[in-house]
């Protein structure tokens, strides 16, 4: 019987554990790719940018495979790599210009009906996340989306748990206010049409 996936068909336990580390490593990496894409999707401002970030993280992880410690969390290790590359990219860019781009996108030139519908779409929530300061965005993605505990998020980001708590609270409040203002805007538009 052929087992179709990357588990391999180890005939005995010794062979299982003696499997090439690099292949196991790649398999772990592939398994966590959807979560890396989701994480990167929250940090960046477009799907292609997120995939570029994940690809860079994969390449760096493979180059530093020897630094991963067995028995520690692989996903946290990868989140840390994604975060590091992302911060490097942020520093290398003109962030103000990017913020302007986002603002322009939010006020985009779609026809009015579509713009109202767009407000209903969850993609608008992602845009609201993109407007958060980078440290809040990072914390929000790690804890609220990826489900890390505060302690785990603190380990990934290298900040104290108290900082995670305050960043997360600010992010959640800001996000909620943004979402509420969107609802208010829609209601106002609806009232005006009525």
């Amino acid at each position, binding site marked *: 019987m052929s087992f179709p996936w990357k588990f391999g068909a180890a005939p005995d336990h010794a062979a299982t554990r003696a499997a090439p580390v690099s292949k196991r490593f*790649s398999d772990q990496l592939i398994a966590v790719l959807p979560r890396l894409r989701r994480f990167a999707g929250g940090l960046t401002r477009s799907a292609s940018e997120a995939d570029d970030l994940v690809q860079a993280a994969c390449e760096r992880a493979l180059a530093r495979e020897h630094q991963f410690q067995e028995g520690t969390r692989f996903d946290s290790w990868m989140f840390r790599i994604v975060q590091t590359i992302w911060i490097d990219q942020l520093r290398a860019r003109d962030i103000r210009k990017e913020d302007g781009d986002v603002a322009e996108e939010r006020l985009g030139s779609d026809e009015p009906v579509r713009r109202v519908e767009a407000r209903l779409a*969850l993609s608008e929530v992602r845009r609201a996340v993109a407007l958060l300061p980078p440290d809040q965005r990072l914390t929000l993605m790690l804890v609220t989306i990826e489900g890390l505990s505060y302690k785990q998020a603190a380990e990934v980001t290298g900040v104290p748990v108290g900082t995670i708590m305050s960043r997360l609270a600010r992010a959640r409040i800001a*996000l909620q206010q943004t979402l509420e203002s969107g609802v208010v805007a829609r209601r106002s538009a609806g009232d005006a049409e009525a």
Partner: protein
Amino acid sequence: MQKHSDEALVAYLDNELDADERAHVEAWLDADPAVRDRLLALAESATTLRNAFAEFMTEPVPERLIAAARGETASATEAEIVELRPRRTEAAPPPSSRWYIQLATAAGLFGLAVGGGAGYLGNSIMTPPQVPAERQIQAAALNNWLDNAAGDYKLMVNAGDTLVDVPANGDNGDVLQKVSQSLPQPVRLPDLKPWGLSFQGARLIVVDGRPAAQLVYTTDNKAIGPLALIIGSTKQSDIAPTFERRQDLNLLYWRHQGRASVLVGQSEIGYLWGIANDVAWQLDAI
């Protein structure tokens, strides 16, 4: 952290407070309806947020990322489709049985229904390719399956040996026979002794409306166990081994030839991966 603060509310929702802090927040909630409203709004927004990013878990992963993970150069061929991962549609589990937390969860789920619908509508309008409704339903069913698996694991760990329906005996043949009587196909018992895991017994459980066997293993190695292997039947197509998390639990699940399996434990995913490799080979070996 101030006891009466947004930080405290958010940490309360995230189940990150100790007993004293939780009691303070609950007293605050009892005393102030406006704070309860704020908590509800925060719970709703968290659900909406999770929904907004859920589609990443069901989209095909681009070939270039698969290639990058394998250390290969991406080719310019048509995108490879890899197995779908479940759409995470559940709100965070409520940290308390208090009524307003239940309400918060209910509100979150309502938001999920509305938000999910809006998201699907939005996707259909704005962001091709669409995610078929059938696929969303399958992903939701898978999520429920994993939620139940995680819940049964917690129950098993908290209750200890008393919860094992059929305890392990000498050859374990009787155990498997009794468990298999209630399942559509016989259960094989993976031998995980090389991992230091001892079979303790089996439970018959129901996950996603179908009978399943929960095989319970324990070990002195705290880095690995205890561990539960749940095996049920499925009519859905095969799915590659995939990691998920539920609170502090790691889950690794796969479907193969009519059998749905999930390993549940607190062990690091590297261990789970190796053990699952072993389990999969033993289950499918003839």
